[in-house]
């Protein structure tokens, strides 16, 4: 699956998780994500999260529920009292607080799981490749850092062994100076050599255009729109004010894209963007729209579930539930290292 389709998938899942507090819908999304981790074939071979998901999420949900129950004593269904005058803790323990905390735990687990899938599915190099051309010096710094990481770890081990041969022992934190300083000096020397070899091979960084008054006007206006929309939304809760923020955001994004167009860059390999990627991206966005846009055939009140003041059994919207299944698509599309790059011809 194309990396931009992955980003759209991530946005759609995060949007769905933000748009609902209904525990049944959250559990469904969590189950879909959990199922994905079982059947998807990741691009990255290194296991970034060496933990078992189910016990981990159970722990998050339980911790959030207990934490909220101990600190939030609001709700009508009192289960028991914690006696005494312990600050924050003493008081009634309510079922509503437990459900509210567990709902927070479900949302946090969903966010964590969706990012875990995203991180595992895209390699670091693929993410770097997505950095806009306007930021290519930064992308170069990041590429250098990532490529030199293994050699730095290797060098650290060499220094440790050399110091050990000299009889140096690592007893306290001060002893680590004899490892860190040679590593720092060696790395700085290597950066000098790297700079010289880059220059000798003809690398000259493209001089990025400084922000002219005209460009600066666009970016400042964009930021003012963004802040203004946000403040208006915060002040009266009108979600349409986000439109102003979005306008500002798009102004800045288009400005960066326009700058990117000015920078000449040769592309050796380009990622595939097929019709299938377009279709599934549209499906993900449609799934997100069902969650966030008021549609006549969907009762959004079911999604805005609140445990307070008295807990009730949440309803389940079958249409939203079916639509949520679209988030499972990458599990069937992503077959092994999918970011196969093709030479630009």
């Amino acid at each position, binding site marked *: 699956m194309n990396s931009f389709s992955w980003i759209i998938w991530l946005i759609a899942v995060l949007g769905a998780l933000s748009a609902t507090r209904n525990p049944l819908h959250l559990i469904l999304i969590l189950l879909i994500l959990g199922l994905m981790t079982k059947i998807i074939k990741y691009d990255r071979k290194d296991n970034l999260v060496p933990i078992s998901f189910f016990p981990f999420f159970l722990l998050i949900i339980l911790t959030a529920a207990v934490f909220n129950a101990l600190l939030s004593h609001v709700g009508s269904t009192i289960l028991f009292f914690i006696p005494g005058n312990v600050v924050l803790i003493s008081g009634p323990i309510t079922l509503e607080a437990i459900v509210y905390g567990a709902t927070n735990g479900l949302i946090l687990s969903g966010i964590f799981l969706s990012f875990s899938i995203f991180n595992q599915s895209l390699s670091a190099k693929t993410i770097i490749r997505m950095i806009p051309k306007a930021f290519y010096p930064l992308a170069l710094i990041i590429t250098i850092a990532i490529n030199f990481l293994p050699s730095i770890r290797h060098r650290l081990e060499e220094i440790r062994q050399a110091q050990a041969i000299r009889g140096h022992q690592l007893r306290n934190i001060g002893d680590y100076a004899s490892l860190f*300083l040679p590593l*720092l000096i060696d790395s700085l020397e290597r950066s000098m050599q790297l700079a010289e070899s*880059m220059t000798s091979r003809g690398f000259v960084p493209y001089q990025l255009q400084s922000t002219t008054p005209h460009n600066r006007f666009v970016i400042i206006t964009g930021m003012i729109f963004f802040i203004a929309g946000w403040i208006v939304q915060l002040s009266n809760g009108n979600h349409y004010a986000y439109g102003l923020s979005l306008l500002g955001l798009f102004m800045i994004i288009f400005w960066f894209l326009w700058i990117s167009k000015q920078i000449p860059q040769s592309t050796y390999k380009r990622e595939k963007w097929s019709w299938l990627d377009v279709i599934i991206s549209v499906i993900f966005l449609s799934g997100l729209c069902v969650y966030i846009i008021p549609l006549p055939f969907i009762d959004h009140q079911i999604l805005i579930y609140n445990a307070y003041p008295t807990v009730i059994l949440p309803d389940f919207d079958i249409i939203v539930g079916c639509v949520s299944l679209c988030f499972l698509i990458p599990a069937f599309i992503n077959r092994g290292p999918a970011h196969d790059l093709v030479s630009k011809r």
Partner: protein
Amino acid sequence: MVLYILCTGLGIFAFLQPFFLPDIKQSYAYTQIRSNDAPWMVTLALSLCVFIIFYEIQTQAVNTRIIALMGMLVAINSSLRFLEVAIPGPGGFSPVFFLIIMVGYVYGSYFGFLMGALTLFVSALITGGVGPWLPGQMFTAGWVGMSSPLIKPIVHYLAKILKKNEMKIEIFFLAIFGAIWGLLYGAIMNLWAWPFISGPSNQYWTPGISFGNTLLRYSAYYLITSLAWDLCRSAGNVLLISLLGAPVIKTLRRFQDRFSFSYQCE
């Protein structure tokens, strides 16, 4: 300069907006929805600020030597973060802030911002830590590096007045600086999640209460959940700066001279 001020202002507003909200009349139903979308707006605002500051810095100071030097320093610091993830230290102890502070202090605020923000980004890439919390971490770590040159005038002034070894004064103030940022980093990063985990309790963020009350609630929350954790980070920064600060500053200064030469073709 206008863009830096605007971005910093937007970043501060993004983190501190729960404190400004009490002055605004809001409904209960709105509060419930808001607790879901607030972190995303904060993430979006901070991403925007980080990108704009990155671009501004790029246009002012980019050459081959800076790219290579920065790449290597970020690699060293990211390996330290990698070690920290593999072998967790006590509480919030993290060795990454040491080098961010040192680099920012010696090479200046632009370099310090890049060092802080890129270290967090690269280490997130290699440890699988990319998430909505990342822009906040990048921005705050960038602030750590960006603000460290601020103590230079104090050091120069005191060295002149007291007629003492400047290095000792530097290390003393950098240690204090590291201690403050150790606590501040945790306090700022908590703000990203605080409105998100809020419930209608007396101890959490609820729109509609006064500024003082919000501050009191946040202080209570911070004292209970984070202070002990952040004190470990703070003590770790002090320890590392006290033990390794002087030789690292000397090394970075030596290379600063070597990296600052330029040649012109005829």
